[in-house]
């Protein structure tokens, strides 16, 4: 008995004692090995889809609703401008010009990592997709084109956030942002800022590649890039670079096939990606509603009861319109008619943005009307007032607004103001103010809500500092202020670029 017992035990322990490397090798169930991803087009497309997810939902490490995805940046870009009053909520920090551009505040590093995280994912796609075997060139071109377009978009936004506008920076040969085009390994060292020209070369090269690769390509959905969107981005880039000819040219190419936003569409609440004038946007489904994921979804910022029927949905009543901005609309302008006075708080509200009844309202990132305004602005700069005015009036007619009669600089001013009236809430205010070197003047009732602080043109407050954690861990970027070093100066609002 005893012997049998020992025999069994001895055998059993021997079995475990046989070291089994297979037994010791475990794999995760919710991740996939990097070596598996680029074996097929499907894998490469999945990696690309991941980038669109990051574009839509990544926090960049900020962890706050006002840094979640491009939509949050759109809202912040607007409240940083002149036309919106923020009364409470996360975006108050931006609105009050509290100093969120500082490198040691969460926002600078959240924006920074948001883009560079996407860029690193794109770099792998761009490096490994051409090596996939057994697929057609056209299939590869689609993935490559989208990846190039998104990378160009990332660098373009970085350039606008982390440096003065191109024209100023180019004249002074100022630094750009670090450029990475290869996938990061554990040996990758942080790169230096280079020059703004190098950054814009990269942007134009990426978007140019995208335009080339995406010729004839049909995207899977409107939240992806296609050739029109790449051209639209190029129009934006050339507008910033003051290359009026190319800006007008690309704006016109980009909106081909997209009608302007109709009066009916204008009143529909800006929540449907199928709107015919929308060139690029982001749809939302029940699983990804930004309203329900945490609090403070984008639509709930607006003081308008969120959905048309109101129901039990909450608006957080944060975003109002400045009284001076509300006065810009002519009497019959359908856009002005959406603005109403809320008696109890004594502020103007806007009904431009309404969510759908199931909180799955979509978001617009680019539409034909913006392209038309780029074209008009560029034509006016080129001295072609007739075309510029007729383009502007084409839009005004749809909005039931008074047609323009002006020429020259007044016309240009009207076009720029039209951008505010047409595009408010869509993320253009901040970049436009920087591009136009206008400074921020907040008149009217801003002063009752702590938003009065004026920012002079060319103030360093228009430029985010390079995040402290980048400087600390990147041997090629130092913390000394430009022009002696790499860091963007930060100081009082009045400190400006000479």
């Amino acid at each position, binding site marked *: 008995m005893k012997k049998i017992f020992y025999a069994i*035990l001895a055998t059993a322990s021997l079995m475990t004692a046989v070291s089994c490397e297979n037994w010791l090798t*475990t794999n995760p169930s919710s991740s*996939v090995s990097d070596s598996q991803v680029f074996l097929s087009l499907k894998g490469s497309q999945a990696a690309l889809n991941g980038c669109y997810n990051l574009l839509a939902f990544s926090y960049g490490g900020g962890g706050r609703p006002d840094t979640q995805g491009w939509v949050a940046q759109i809202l912040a870009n607007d409240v940083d401008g002149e036309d919106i009053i923020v009364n409470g909520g996360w975006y108050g920090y931006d609105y009050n010009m509290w100093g969120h551009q500082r490198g040691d505040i969460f926002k600078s590093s959240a924006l920074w990592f948001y883009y560079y995280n996407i860029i690193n994912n794109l770099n792998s796609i761009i490096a490994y997709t051409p090596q996939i075997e057994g697929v057609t060139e056209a299939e590869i071109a689609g993935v490559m084109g989208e990846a190039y377009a998104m990378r160009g978009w990332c660098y373009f936004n970085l350039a606008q956030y982390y440096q003065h506008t191109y024209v100023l920076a180019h004249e002074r040969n100022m630094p750009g942002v670090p450029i990475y085009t290869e996938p990061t390994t554990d040996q990758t060292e942080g790169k230096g800022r280079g020059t703004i020209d190098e950054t814009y070369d990269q942007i134009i090269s990426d978007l140019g590649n995208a335009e080339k690769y995406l010729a004839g390509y049909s995207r899977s959905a409107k939240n992806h890039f296609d050739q029109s969107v790449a051209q639209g981005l190029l129009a934006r880039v050339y507008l910033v670079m003051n290359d009026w000819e190319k800006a007008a040219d690309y704006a016109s190419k980009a909106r081909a096939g997209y009608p302007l936003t109709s009066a009916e569409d204008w009143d529909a609440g800006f929540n449907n990606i199928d709107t015919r004038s929308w060139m690029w946007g982001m749809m939302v489904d029940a699983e990804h509603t930004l309203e329900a994921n945490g609090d403070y979804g984008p639509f709930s910022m607006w003081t308008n009861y969120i959905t048309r029927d109101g129901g039990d949905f909450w608006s957080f009543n944060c975003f109002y319109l400045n009284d001076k901005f509300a006065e810009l609309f002519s009497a019959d302008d359908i856009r002005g008619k959406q603005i109403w006075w809320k008696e109890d708080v004594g502020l103007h509200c806007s009904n431009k943005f309404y969510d759908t009844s199931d909180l799955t309202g979509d978001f617009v990132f680019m539409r034909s009307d913006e392209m038309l305004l780029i074209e008009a602005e560029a034509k006016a700069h080129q001295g072609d007032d007739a075309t510029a005015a007729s383009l502007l009036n084409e839009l005004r007619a749809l909005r039931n607004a008074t047609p323009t009669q002006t020429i020259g600089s007044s016309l240009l001013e009207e076009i720029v103001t039209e951008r505010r009236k047409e595009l408010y809430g869509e993320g253009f205010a901040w970049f436009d103010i920087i591009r136009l070197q206008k400074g921020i003047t907040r008149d009217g009732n801003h002063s009752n809500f*702590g938003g009065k602080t004026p920012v002079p043109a060319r103030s360093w407050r228009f430029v985010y500092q390079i995040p402290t954690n980048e400087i*600390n861990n990147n041997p090629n970027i130092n913390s000394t202020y430009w022009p002696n070093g790499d860091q963007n100066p930060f100081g009082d609002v009045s400190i400006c670029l000479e």
Partner: protein
Amino acid sequence: MKKFILGILAVVLFSVAASAQTRTLTGSVKSAADGSPLVGATLQDKATGQFAITDLDSNFKITVSEKSTSLLVMNLGFRDYNATIGKSDVLNIALEPDALMLDETMVIAYGQGKKTSFTGSASVVKKEDLQKIATSNVTQALQGLSAGVQVINNSGQPGDSGSITIRGIGSMNASSSPLYVVDGVAYSGYINAIAPSDIESMTVLKDASATALYGSRAANGVIVITTKKGQNENGKVSFRATVGFASLAVPLPRQLSPNEFAQVTWRSLYNANIDSGMSPEEAGAQAAIVTPNEIKILPWATRNIIDANGNPLVTDKDLLWYGDWRHETMRSRPRQEYNVDFSGKKGETNYFFSAGYLNDKGIFTTQEFDRISGRSNVSTKVKPWLEVGSNTSFSHSVTDSPAGDSVVWFLRTVPTVNSIYQYDYNTGAYAKDGAGNYIYNYGLDNAGWAGWNVLADAAYNNNKSTADQISTRNYIDAQIIPGLNFRSTISIDYYISKYDSYASAEYGYTAGEGGNAYKSYDRNVATTWTNLLTFNRAFGQHNLGILLGQESYMRDVTGLSASRKGFPFAGLTELSSAATSVDSSSYTDKYRLLSFFSRLEYDYADKYYVSASLRSDATSRFSPQSRWGMFWSAGASWRINNEDFLKDVRWIDNLKLKASYGAVGNDGLNSWYCYQGLYATGYNDLNNAGVVISRLPNNGLKWETNLQLNVGIDFALFRKLTGSVEFFDRKSKDLLFTMPMAPSTGFGGVDRNIGDVSNYGVEVNLDYAVFNNQNFQWNMNFNLTHYENVITSLPQAEINADVFKWREGQSRYNFWGAKYAGVNPANGNDQYWRNIFDTDEDGKRVIVDRVLTESTADVTSDEQKQYLGSSLPDVFGGFTNNFRFYGIDLSVMLYYSIGGLLYDTDYSQMVNYRTGFSLHPDALSKTWTPENPNAELPRLNKNAQDTFSDKYLYNNSFLRLRNVTLGYTLPRKALDKMHMDQLRFFVQGDNLLTFGSAAKRGTDPEQSVSGTTSNRFPTTKNVTFGVQVTF
């Protein structure tokens, strides 16, 4: 126990050999302290070597020879006694309790050993001490009881564990928590599933010699929890019941009244206006206009609440409502615990069965921890050579509505102008719904508070975690030849934890989408199979012990979660009732360890002890090339008092020198697949599945090794004072370290084996028996720990880690920031020291001077910052006094922590104005105003800029009256009449008093090792009444 068995054997053997010329003595052995009978005491006739053991009634019968003069009487926990044999054949012996307990056995790795022969460092905490604290998680009770063990009880959430650090933080990015071993096997369950009343002892193993046999996971020390087993031939029933009440140990700061809130708002706006260039008159008038807009909804009938000079125009008498949130949410509710156990020994079978029920309601509205637990521990000898045993526990626990950080943040910063219920200005009363109930105010119109009402959330929403756990240890132990044993143990820790949340379909933020429900199930199975071969034999004065072992550990966790929204009816919370799917996911993860180990122990003549161990481990966390690690230890001790030259020094009862050195491992990175390059799934583009890069490949990653040195002395003097002093030095090699990368690479960092960190220090433990009479006993325990943390090697010159800067030669917990220079009395602004630089002869930039600046922008660059001091305390420990006077026992324990800084953001968030958020009373009394120019805090300012400095760094020395226990045990005579062994009534109070600067600010001093706060739900003060019955 062992003594007992040997004794029985001896009796059998010697009684056969008994010769003539004898007489028989009878009698009994009792405790001199309380007269209780001592079962199993041994009596030895020194002349003949005859043994006897007392029976169940403590009686004995022993045959002695004519030559015999005395009997040596021994019992564990009592002093040895020489009973003189007189003429009488009846001997009634009383033994004095031994306050020193030198010969106590203790639990060591894979077995038991005598305290005196132990070469390592360990401290034992017994059940009596653990039971003094009314906690639902036994780790909290360890505080102050063991030198070298830093316990931070930073949660008042019922069932939460304390944060335990043994001899400092030896790891940077890998885990720094100790390994828990329950009944000999590494534990992978919930600590709060173990009923504290089931615990016999907790042993903290601190050095390499003690922990080496758990070496692959023991780098941060080991806490061995040993549960009770049956010992008493009589059989015993114990019952213990307690009922208690809790409140916050350190109350939150007082709430500002609505009037005071209007004043701080006005003042903040006024100062911001002054800064934007307004004249004082303009600034005051403007602030008076804006103040009601800032607050938005006012609890007064007028919006004209403050004048241009900041004087209130309304009084608290005019209030329409007063949002007394604290009062409504924080209620003392009872904590009840009942435990019963049945234990004993029948022949070769030991048994212990227990059942327990705990209901701990905490102090925050619906917060609750509820536990039902049971245990059965049985062991028996099936054959003379074969022993089997099984120790299995079950627990079912429910954690309901825990109050998270956001709730505490809410309670600290919600202003009293926010009404709890919706107010109807028309009726001048709270609004009511159709059913006549008040309607909660979700702060939709209160500035900054849209969606917030913790009372409404508690009332309408569910948030419940349930854990069902079975933990079982099963062994067979076979004796191959005497001294050579084989033992095989299979242990399983199994639990299913279920999380259930529901946000209302009718009320609050989620009403709009028809409510939502989220459910998750996680299943954890950890299986350990241990095989041990042990050989123990004495060769004359030489004792030899050899252990060979093999162990495999596998842990599989799987999870499933889903959420849906859109419930058509109130009261339904199951997913199938909801309209729309929001999310669903599942995962499976696996962790494996394979180990081979050995230990050699040798001692000679109770004087010289050596032990050595060697082990090899493989982990699934590292790549096949680097997954095996080798760990070892060596230790020695010398009992000097057993040497001839000290044998006659009567006042030295014990004197032992000991030293050990060894290497233990750590693979505890936050990922189970840390060497693999990975893409995370689940990132879809709203149509199709997507993946994103989540980890860089890293094949070279290997075990982190902790090299631990321990040198100590144990002593016992005058039969009164015992103690130990130990020095330790823990050095980490191949530290698992997240090497930071520039974020522009797309990665924050990559794990590497780089850098070294060292923790060294000293521990002192003293026990002093002041009085030890039959009717009055007074014992003191004092312990003290001091340790330093030093980074000895880094992969780069410095690493910024949040508010710390890591450099070689510095502590990882040394704060780094701007130097605050106080408030400028002239204008109330913050001032900082700004360094002035110049270039010296060598062309180096050096600080030549420092000047005051009021601009934070001047001091945000790194060269303007400096080390501000460490969060680690200089010393900490406990001081306990135990008294026993007749049947009354009293225990008073103090816990102290001296030095160390706390960065108190719980406080700073309440002295800086933000629209809509309430402030600390100090914001009124301690901030700068022209009338209060020497204020401690700067003027309130809506647009104030701040930067990290030592402004809110406070010395966090504190003293806590950790526990007072007062008990009364009925005398023996009374108990005998009631047929009871013990009946004790007691009352105990935990955390009754707290002294120190943090408590004055309304911040609990126990926050975190790193000295940072995060609106934690702080620890509680408990008063508990109880009764303990044994029969």
